[in-house]
């Protein structure tokens, strides 16, 4: 079966107004990131807060500027699957190296 060329890829891209609002959100999130970095009160929760803000910026660019929000879901799969693998490798390596050090330290202390 062959589909009509371009049949499933036609999609309405966001308007300039949406692009500007996304840009404003990205600037605000960046200002928040830098602000949180300099406020001593946030020291304890700095890493999770920064990761959430960074993930929000990442998602906004991918969804609206790269058009994955309205585009064919197969593109989401082509991007999302390797992204999940990359994050999985990152987490596994961190557990492997840093977790091993923590266990070694605990064994030494015990």
């Amino acid at each position: 079966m062959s589909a009509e060329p371009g049949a499933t890829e036609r999609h309405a891209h966001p308007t300039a107004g949406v692009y500007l609002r996304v840009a404003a959100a990205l600037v605000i999130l960046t200002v928040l990131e830098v602000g949180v970095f300099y406020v001593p009160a946030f020291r304890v929760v700095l890493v999770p807060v920064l990761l959430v803000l960074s993930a929000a910026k990442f998602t906004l660019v991918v969804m609206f500027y790269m058009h994955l929000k309205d585009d064919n879901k197969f593109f989401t799969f082509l991007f999302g699957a390797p992204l999940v693998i990359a994050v999985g490798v990152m987490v596994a390596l961190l557990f492997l190296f840093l977790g091993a050090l923590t266990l070694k330290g605990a064994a030494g202390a015990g």
Partner: protein
Amino acid sequence: MSAHTSMGLDNRKMAFWAFIGSECLLFGSLISTYLVYKGKSVVGPYPPEILNIPFTSVSTFDLLMSSLMMVLALAAVQRGDLKWGKIWLFSTALLGLVFLGGQVLEFTEFVHKGLTIGTNLFGCTFFVLTGTHGAHVTVGVLWLLTLWVRALQGKLGRANAMTVEITGLYWHFVDVVWIVIFTVVYLIQ
């Protein structure tokens, strides 16, 4: 000219998304390496002594604005407004050049302060990660300038909107990688 897959998708766009997926793995491995060796340098300079957050924040803002210019260029080309398409394409390339200038300044300052790729684990992983990203930005700027020249020659019209969209995908990917690097390398010290 564009061909379509049996799914009705533009084959260049599909191939490019697969390429971006492979780039996720490349940058994932480089960021993992940086994180694994984080805090393991036995000699300085160490990240808090050398990283300039205000300067890098401006670079981050610059790259985010270049992404805005890129989508505005695509929107202009899609509606056949080549005058604004040329302006936004050039603006995107210009902001990319500003980002690269900032990176050259940053690297030069680090070398003067004693941090090179061979100084310590931080220097090695930092320069490889941010240098690879900088190389991607350089390719993006050359690509954008090529499109801009083609637009000036009148060879970039509404029919070539997919070419601009694919260029945009590359440019936005470079932007999202920087979003992660800015957080992981600069802000989480």
